[in-house]
């Protein structure tokens, strides 16, 4: 991340409404630094694509301003914006070969013929597709088409690259491979990237910063570890990674932002972090990640947060680990991960255990 004082891209108070009634993007403030990899993450319909389309120039904001490199760009047509774009289904021109697709943006910029040839070749080599230059897009596999789309979006040295769920159509293995590839390109080319996805794993592994969207608003923006480790609200806590959400009631408030919570479904008192002003007796949701839930031998081994006894209601085998489920009500169940290797014990339904976590690992939110 470079100098935050002078953002490369700046959304200020941007609204977008298609029907004049509801804002699908609502009061958006967003800064993107030069060279940054920023991801817009959120459920379907949360306004990510709309935000991207406004930056690309395909949609005009209903209110607010968008600045790029210090200048407002709302009146600049798309073709003058100089942003590379990767569309979800790639939008490779089916009537042109791979090489012609890559040459297209260069032709539009009136680059000399020999330079076009050289640049196309070089870019195809970057994505390791030099041998497919003469193919038509219809003859490419999904992964190859994806890489061609990527190559086409960078071949003309754009000022930044916008990608709207570019890996959505690929299978899991290819997707993970392409995540690394895009990350590598970002480093090699030192280019600003705005990336849209609804896949939180993808966001966590690729981004410098993540902006979580919901209902047209940014819920939280920060580095992947900030987003995962200290979510600011229940939506982010629930959306980023797996989380247990347990019903509880505040039994005491304390210093350090820690509170004691009585867990209704487990009849136990546990400590947790509170980010909101809460009173004794308030009903809350306690969020704690499965990997932070530990099994302990003795009640005091859990430290100041304490521990409570419960019975395993289900075990789920995952290969490298086993998930243990506690609590009768599946919607409010508590799960934990225990490593699974040759030496570890076999868990069975009905086993009685003591459960505990670090107070700082759990957060309470208003339900």
């Amino acid at each position, binding site marked *: 991340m470079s100098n935050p004082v002078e953002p490369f891209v700046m959304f200020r108070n941007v609204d977008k409404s298609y029907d004049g009634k509801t804002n699908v993007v609502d009061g958006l403030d967003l800064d993107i630094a030069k060279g940054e990899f920023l991801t817009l993450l959120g459920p379907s319909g949360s306004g990510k694509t709309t935000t991207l389309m406004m930056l*690309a120039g395909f949609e005009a904001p209903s209110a607010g301003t968008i600045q790029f490199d210090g200048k407002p760009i709302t009146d600049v047509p798309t*073709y003058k914006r100089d*942003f590379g*774009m990767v569309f979800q289904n790639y*939008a*490779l*021109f089916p009537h042109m070969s791979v090489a012609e697709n890559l040459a*297209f943006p260069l032709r539009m910029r009136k680059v000399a013929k020999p330079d076009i040839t050289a640049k196309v070749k070089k870019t195809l080599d970057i994505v390791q597709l030099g041998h497919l230059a003469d193919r*038509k897009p219809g003859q490419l596999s999904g992964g190859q088409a994806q890489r061609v789309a990527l190559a086409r979006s960078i071949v003309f040295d754009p000022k930044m690259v916008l990608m709207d769920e570019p890996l959505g159509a690929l299978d899991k293995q290819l997707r993970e491979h392409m995540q690394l590839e895009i990350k590598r390109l970002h480093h090699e080319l030192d280019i600003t990237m705005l990336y849209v996805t609804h896949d939180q794993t993808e966001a966590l592994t690729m981004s410098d910063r993540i902006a979580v969207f919901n209902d047209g608003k940014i819920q939280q923006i920060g580095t992947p570890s900030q987003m995962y480790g200290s979510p600011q609200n229940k939506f982010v806590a629930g959306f980023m990674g797996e989380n247990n959400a347990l019903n509880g009631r505040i039994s005491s408030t304390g210093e350090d932002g820690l509170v004691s919570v009585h867990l209704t479904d487990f009849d136990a008192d546990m400590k947790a972090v509170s980010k909101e002003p809460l009173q004794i007796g308030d009903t809350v949701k306690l969020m704690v990640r499965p990997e932070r839930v530990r099994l302990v031998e003795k009640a005091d081994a859990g430290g100041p947060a304490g521990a409570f006894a419960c019975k395993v209601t289900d075990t789920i085998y995952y290969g490298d680990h086993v998930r243990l489920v506690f609590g009768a009500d599946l919607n409010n169940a508590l799960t934990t991960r225990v490593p699974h290797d040759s030496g570890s014990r076999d868990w069975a339904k009905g086993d009685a255990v003591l459960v505990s976590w670090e107070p700082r690992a759990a957060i309470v939110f208003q339900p």
Partner: protein
Amino acid sequence: MNGKSKMSWLLVAPLLILVCVGFIIPIGYTLIKAIKNPEITAALPRTTSALENWEWDGKSPPPEAVYEALIADIEQGDRGRNYGSMTRRLNFEQSGSRSIMMKARRIADKIEAPYAVSLPEAVPEFGDGDIWQLIKQNSNPYTARYLLRAMDLTVTLDGSIERVASDQAIFVDLFKRTFVISIWVTVLCVFLGYPTAFWMSTLSDRAAGYVMLLVLIPFWTSILVRTTAWFILLQREGPINAALLGTGLVDEPLRMIFTRFAVYIAMVHVLLPFFILPIYSVMKRLGMEYVKAAASLGAPPWRQFVTVYLPLSMPGVAAGAVIVFMLSVGFYITPALVGGLQDQMVSYYIAFYANQTINLGMASSLAVLLLLFTAATIAIAKKLLPETGSGIRA
């Protein structure tokens, strides 16, 4: 045959039967009618076989045996329909032949052998070889003469092919006119239909539904009704002229009915939906995605259109244009109603030969040539069109 394939045969059987009965058989029949030539041999079997060994030298008549054969054919033939068709057939090749042959029949009872003397005395045309040569030339069971005539060509008595007299040479012009009208109608449909279909493809589904209804309503009305509507609109006393006169735009009524203009306007109106439907379906599937991609890659609007949208929508244009062209080539009722004599197309003459003069050979020949020329035009157009293999299919 196992049960499954029996089942599939049963499923396609109605279509196969329909195709055979409604398509292959009539076209085959038409093709054969265009070259079939039974009339002369049917009416004059003896004469034609007697003529086999005779060579026409430009003046000398055939030997007595041929005359005897003709008299025998007249006396022993059915004297009715066959003879009549034969005379019409000869008259088509050489006008005047009909009355010669009729005279021969009338006096056949009254003259005595040797007929080589008595027949020319009664009917002088039998005195030289020409009429005999005409009979001999047309005694093959198949003939190319109808097809040649449909191209304004004829066969002379010595067997060479030459152009018919200019007052009879109408068919080359007719074909040219048919194709010129059809090409213009196609071009007009493309230029009117393409932007319309594009506009429709950008509408919401609901709005597009309503506009589609507007396109389809005329489609559901019979061509005859729509053409009649134009007939009324374009008349000298019709509403268009009334409006023009009323607004003072013109001083006297414009002549619109029975002109080429009327033919174009009515044909384009009838055929436009046939163009809009396929191109709309292509554009609907094409969407704006590629145009957006082109814009993001730096293409200004007109280059977005020329380099991306146009080539990708070309298969739709081709499909629509081929449909419009093929339909307009065969148009009959519209030019017949609103066009003048100089605006009639091939179908008009096909109908004329089929209904008025009952010359099925000529009607079939025109139909066959129309089919061939249309197929050739479309094949050429396909070759000339830019490679659109990877575009969106219609």
